[in-house]
């Protein structure tokens, strides 16, 4: 381990070293984590708003609004593009966001473990700023990932859902969430997601370096509002199906 000199930094040219600055440096990885995290936040919000269509029930023709919404997503771009093509572009983009976010978390966790070393403080550390949300980012994130995998198997491809019918979004949702064990898992995942968002939606501004006093106070409001909105919206659906309000 040696000093990185300014001459070394200045001598770097070309896009490889540029990309390397983001993918090898911890600060660069955190920057990527913040950007991908922001993208995932937007996705989670749009996903939640779209799913609230389940409360609209059926239209005049007796079709569920949420089924029509699902079909509209598959049919994005209309006749201009092949069926489901735009949806697949979104899916690939999401996968890239998840991939970079998780890769950065993985690499940084390993680095932090080795920087921390084996020696622990004898006396219990008197933490002042650490809270439940930021202490559970790693395991909470793993729980959210497991939930996402189950959620895809359950309601996108239907492997985990014996009553799954492609395109029948409303019926699939009810069939899945009316089982208490599934509903409890969905609820637990929403709690984990809310904590993850509560820290992430504040922390990302810090990682991106957006800290001007003009909008510094806004960062915490944003995190609280975002976590609360996503949590309330998503749990409303779970509770509504579980309690039989939606059937």
């Amino acid at each position: 381990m040696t000093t990185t000199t300014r001459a070394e930094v200045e001598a770097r040219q070309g896009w490889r070293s540029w990309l390397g600055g983001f993918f090898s440096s911890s600060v660069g990885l955190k920057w990527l984590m913040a950007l991908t995290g922001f993208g995932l936040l937007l996705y989670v919000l749009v996903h939640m708003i779209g799913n609230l269509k389940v409360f609209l029930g059926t239209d005049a023709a007796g079709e569920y609004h949420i089924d029509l919404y699902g079909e509209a997503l598959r049919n994005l771009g209309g006749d201009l593009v092949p069926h489901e093509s735009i949806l697949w572009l979104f899916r690939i983009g999401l996968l890239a966001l998840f991939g970079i976010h998780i890769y950065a978390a993985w690499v940084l966790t390993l680095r932090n473990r080795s920087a921390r070393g084996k020696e622990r403080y004898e006396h219990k550390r008197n933490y002042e700023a650490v809270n439940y949300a930021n202490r559970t980012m790693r395991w909470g994130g793993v729980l959210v990932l497991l939930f996402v995998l189950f959620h895809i198997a359950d309601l996108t491809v239907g492997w985990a859902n014996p009553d799954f019918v492609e395109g029948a979004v409303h019926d699939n949702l009810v069939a899945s969430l009316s089982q208490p064990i599934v509903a409890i898992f969905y609820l637990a995942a929403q709690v984990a997601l809310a904590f993850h968002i509560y820290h992430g939606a504040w922390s990302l501004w810090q990682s991106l370096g957006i800290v001007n006093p003009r909008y510094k106070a806004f960062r915490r409001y944003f995190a609280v509002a975002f976590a609360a909105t996503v949590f309330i919206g998503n749990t409303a659906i779970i509770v509504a199906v579980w309690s039989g309000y939606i059937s």
Partner: protein
Amino acid sequence: MDLSLKIWRQARANEEGEFKTYQAKNVSPEASFLEMLDEVNEELNATGEDPIAFEHDCREGICGACGVMINGSPHGPQSGTATCQLHMRKFEDGDSITIEPWRATAFPVLKDLIVDRAPFDRIMEAGGYISVNTGAAPDANIIAVPKWSAESAMDAASCIGCAACVAACPNSAANLFTAAKTQHLNLLPQGKPERYLRAAAMVETMEQYFGSCTNYGECEKACPKNISIDFIAMMNKDYVRAQFFNMARQGQK
């Protein structure tokens, strides 16, 4: 007041250490924490036992030499002060106090409570300075410094390099130290010409030794100078900009 002290004893680097318990009798509440340790050492000297080794220098909170983990708090229970400025009136008669060295892979224990903080020197070497021509002193105020940047730079410059931020961080990250040391120069006109080179060189040197920031904010609470983690955000921005704006060879064939 009488105290029971549980202190990390380690004869030298690369040797097994252990906790030993010492009794400090008749400690004055007016004594500073280091004076209390001095008195314990006087007694150890009298009995022939090796005195407890700890770093100290100015004893007025400006040098950054002292610093130990006291009952799980870097620099002890009082916020905004270094260990030397902590007084025994903060403790109760009969208290037991655990005193440990900073713990991080980058900071191996040299002896007892002394750790090797040389990685901080490596970070400073990488860019913690400005390049100026020597010669006659320049005219005062020849470079206009905005009030806001002078104030922020001064806050960052109050870092004494004690390493409490690393000790406090669950990731053993040195981002608060490096942020303070980059930003107190980057915020001033004199530091601007080397701003992005400095950010890149110092951050990448830091990352060879320390963990990464997960925005817990423990460093800010532990800092004896109350330096804000806002400087970490500013450093992050400067580092990323350094990737985008490598000025070398621009416009050249």
